[in-house]
Every structure is written in C-alpha cells, then in structure tokens.
C-alpha cells in the first residue's frame, strides 16, 4: 500500500502523530511519482502545503501511499508500482484512486492518511476499506504541491479510522494559502456541533445498486431515524444522471492538458536519445512511460477539446455542472445532508475487475461523481458489512459545511460500531 516508506522511525518522541501522503502530494524527503512510471525518480524540492502544515503541527510523515496513475482509476489497479490489496480480503480491490491511503488508514491504528479526490477517489476507497474519508469543499485545502489531475475538481482530504481523528487534524490542513488562489475565497471553517434534523435521499441514487448494498444502506437510514431522531426524506435530483458524463468530459479535458508537461525533460524519466526531433522525443518518452488508462484519458480529453467538439462536450459539461450545483442547493436548502450509498457494490475481486470494460468502470463512479463535480464537501462512513466486506454511506452537505459532515459522522459513530481486520469483534 506504500509506494515509499520511511527507513526508520526516529527514536525521539517529539512527534505528536504519524501520517502518510498520497503519492501525488509533493514531499521533499520521498519521491513523488503519482503512481506513474513517467515520474520515476522525481524528488520535489518542496512540500505540498497540506504536508508542510501537518509536519508543522507535529506530524511524522511515514511514507507515500500507492494510487492509480495520476488518480485515473476506481480500483487502484492502474499504478505503475503494484496493486494494493484490500485489508479485509486480499483478493479484492482497495478502491481508487487513493487505495493505498485507505488501506493504511484501515490497517494502522491512529494513522492519518492524506488522500486526494477528483471524482470520488477518497469516498470510493474509504467505502471499500471500511474507513472514514472526508473530501472537503473545492478550495478549502490548498492544492499547492499537488500533482494536478483536473484543476477545477481536485481536492485534498483525509482518511482515518474515525471522524474524530479527522476533526482533530482537518483545521490544520484547511485554510487559505497564497500559493493557491482557489483556496483564498473560503469562509472560516466552523466545526461547532450543529443540530441535524433532516436527510435527503435522492431516488435516482437507489437505482443500479447491488441489493445487499442497498439493504445495508437502508438499515443504516433506519438506525439514523430510530436512534438519532433524524428525519429521512426521499427527493428527486434529475440532473444526477448527467453528472457522470459531464464529469468525465471535464476531468479528461483538464487531465490531457495537465499531462502535457510530462515530456521527459523537467520531471522524472528522460528519453534516451536527445538527437531526436523534440516531437519524436516527447512522443517516445510519453508512449513508453504512460500507462494504458493514462493514454486512454489523454486521448479522450484531447478529442473533447478539439475544434468542432468543444461546444458539444466541454462547454456543455461546464453548464451541466452548474445545473448539478443548483439542484443540490435546492435540496440542501431544506435538508442538512444528501445521503446515498458510496459505491453500488462491495469491493470487487481482481478477477472481476479484469473482465470490466472501461465504460463499466467509469459508470461505477455514478454516486461519488456528483458531489465532486459540484465541488461539494462529502464524507463516506462505513454503514454495514456484506459478506464480511464493508459498505459505505456517503453524506453530502452545502459548500463549506464540513462541520455538518463531521458532526453527523460523529453521531453515527455513537450508534454504529466499525470493524477492522484483525481486531476482536
């Protein structure tokens, strides 16, 4: 699950806690390869802001966690550095793309994992590995030092065994940073307890869910209603069905431009023949070192931005994102959070993943993508166990309302016991 690990834990006890960082966050003392062969050997000369802030708060960075190449994946099977295995069943996926981060959060007690989500890369692995994963509002945490996937979508968050651990450390990484202008328009973080009265459950999110996962989610809602006295309301958010294609258009468009910088000169690996013309040099380095999914997404994103297709795909996707934001705002005016299962199934076996087509993999993200597209904060908490594998519940709140999510997760932990592999049940 780690792509690089500290050699030896320092004997002095001045560190207050330990943490790991997903391998797309720059770190001065470890390579930063973002799961890609093209970044092999890259050692950044600086720390990403969330990493430096945790270090200043007394954190010991113990290693970098494995991930899908540049964040391109739902199952963490697209890394150039091996595939992390699910702590509950090693024949199954950890989820992606922050798969290593979720496995570390699950297996190591009192460990904080920095993860990154573009379209669900914190919620999905949190759900598959049975841990809590907070994805903040877009712009809440500085992206300075993050290897970009989709600039208008990337968010740095935290995975851990409990919401209280996240609550303790989230204020450290949150807050404006002059090095990332998108972090500078945020209101003050408010983590005070608030009254949670009402949960909205979109009807559209209950379709195409594995029956046992749906039952587990419905049981969780019953507990919320009966033991926490929270009202549950069914709502409709018709635009949810368009969020997935809009997301993949925007994400691949942004990724295809971001990945243009990897050409064998400034970062990571170099080509072996500088006598080539630059076009041939760049193409040969990129063709040799990008993985299959990275190539697929570069091609897709390049196509969507081409003359003649830009209006149909890219600009339309931007306008659909606005509709999704408005639809959520309408529902969240009357309800505190929107709840759905996090993933439509439990962590799949690697043998099942091998048989899936790319489009089937993309479609598996249909529940995690909408809040990510809209830049809304969300949290995934374990909400049940099917065949000894965890299932997740995803809660979405208004922009900048991370406090509401941590509050409801904390209430949930008072009435539902999480399980971890190897622990006495």
């Amino acid at each position: 699950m780690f792509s690089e690990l500290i050699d030896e834990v320092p004997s002095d006890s001045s560190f207050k806690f330990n943490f790991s960082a997903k391998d797309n966050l720059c770190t001065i003392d470890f390579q930063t390869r973002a799961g890609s062969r093209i970044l092999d050997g890259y050692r950044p000369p600086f720390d990403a802001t969330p990493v430096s802030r945790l270090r200043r708060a007394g954190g010991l960075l113990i290693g970098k966690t494995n991930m899908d190449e540049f964040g391109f994946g739902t199952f963490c099977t697209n890394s150039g550095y091996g595939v992390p295995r699910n702590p509950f069943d090693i024949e199954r996926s950890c989820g992606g793309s922050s798969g290593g981060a979720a496995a570390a959060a699950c297996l190591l007690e009192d460990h904080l994992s920095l993860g990154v989500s573009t379209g669900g890369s914190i919620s999905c692995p949190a759900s598959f590995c049975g841990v809590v994963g907070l994805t903040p509002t877009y712009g809440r945490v500085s992206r300075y030092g993050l290897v970009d996937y989709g600039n208008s979508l990337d968010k740095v968050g935290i995975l851990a065994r409990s919401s209280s651990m996240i609550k303790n450390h989230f204020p450290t990484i949150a807050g404006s940073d002059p090095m990332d202008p998108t972090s500078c328009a945020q209101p003050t973080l408010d983590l005070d307890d608030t009254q949670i009265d009402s949960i909205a459950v979109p009807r559209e999110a209950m379709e195409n869910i594995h029956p046992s996962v749906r039952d587990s989610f419905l049981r969780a809602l019953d507990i919320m209603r009966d033991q926490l006295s929270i009202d549950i309301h069914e709502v409709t958010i018709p635009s949810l069905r368009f969020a997935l294609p809009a997301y993949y258009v925007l994400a691949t468009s942004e990724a295809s431009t971001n990945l243009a910088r990897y050409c064998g000169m400034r970062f990571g690996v170099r080509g072996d023949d500088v006598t080539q013309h630059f076009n041939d040099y760049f193409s040969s380095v990129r063709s040799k070192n990008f993985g299959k999914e990275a190539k697929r997404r570069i091609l897709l994103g390049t196509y969507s931005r081409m003359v003649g297709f830009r209006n149909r795909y890219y600009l339309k996707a931007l306008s659909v994102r606005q509709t999704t934001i408005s639809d959520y705002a309408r529902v969240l005016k009357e309800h505190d959070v929107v709840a759905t299962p996090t993933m439509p199934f439990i962590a799949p076996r690697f043998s099942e993943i091998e048989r899936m087509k790319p489009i089937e993999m993309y479609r598996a993200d249909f529940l995690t993508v909408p809040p990510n597209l809209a830049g809304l904060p969300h949290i995934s908490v374990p909400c049940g166990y099917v065949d000894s594998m965890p299932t997740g519940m995803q809660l979405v709140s208004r922009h900048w309302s991370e406090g509401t999510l941590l509050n409801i997760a904390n209430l949930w932990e008072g009435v539902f016991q999480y399980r971890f592999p190897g622990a006495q049940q």
Partner: protein
Amino acid sequence: MKSETIEEVARIARLKLTETERTEFSKDLEEVLEYFSMLDEAPGEKEYGLNPIEILDMLREDEVRREIDPELLIRMMDTFEELVRGPRLV
C-alpha cells in the same frame, strides 16, 4: 472511432500508438463517446464558471523572491556544463 481520427488525436497528444493500442482505444473511445452523447439532452444553465465555487482574483506583490534554490532545480535536470540538455528543435 475511425483509425485516422484516433491517429490524429494521438498526434496532437504526442502519443505514438501501436496497432493493438489503436484498435483497442478506438473501440473504448467509441463506447465512452456514445455514453457522453447523453449530454446532448441534458438541461444546462446559461451562466456557468470554470470552477464550482467563486474564485478571488488574487495577485501577489510583484517582488523578486527565491523560494527554491535554482541550483537544486538544475541538478534535477539533464545538464551539460550548466546548460540544460534537450532534444533537437530543428
């Protein structure tokens, strides 16, 4: 997707595809683009931004700062007598 189209997209993206990749990606992209076509019927709003939240127009003071040692940056690149080595331009 036609073979010429994917070849053109790959050229723009600076990727050289093998015959196997070309066939495989053509099929994959065809399926994904067919799925994307549902956006044609999606209701969209006239006003929209490039980001999901409002962004402040931030400018830093225009002053010289050196946060990262240039020597360090140069050391990470392929150099020859303090010159960065790169592929042929002409």
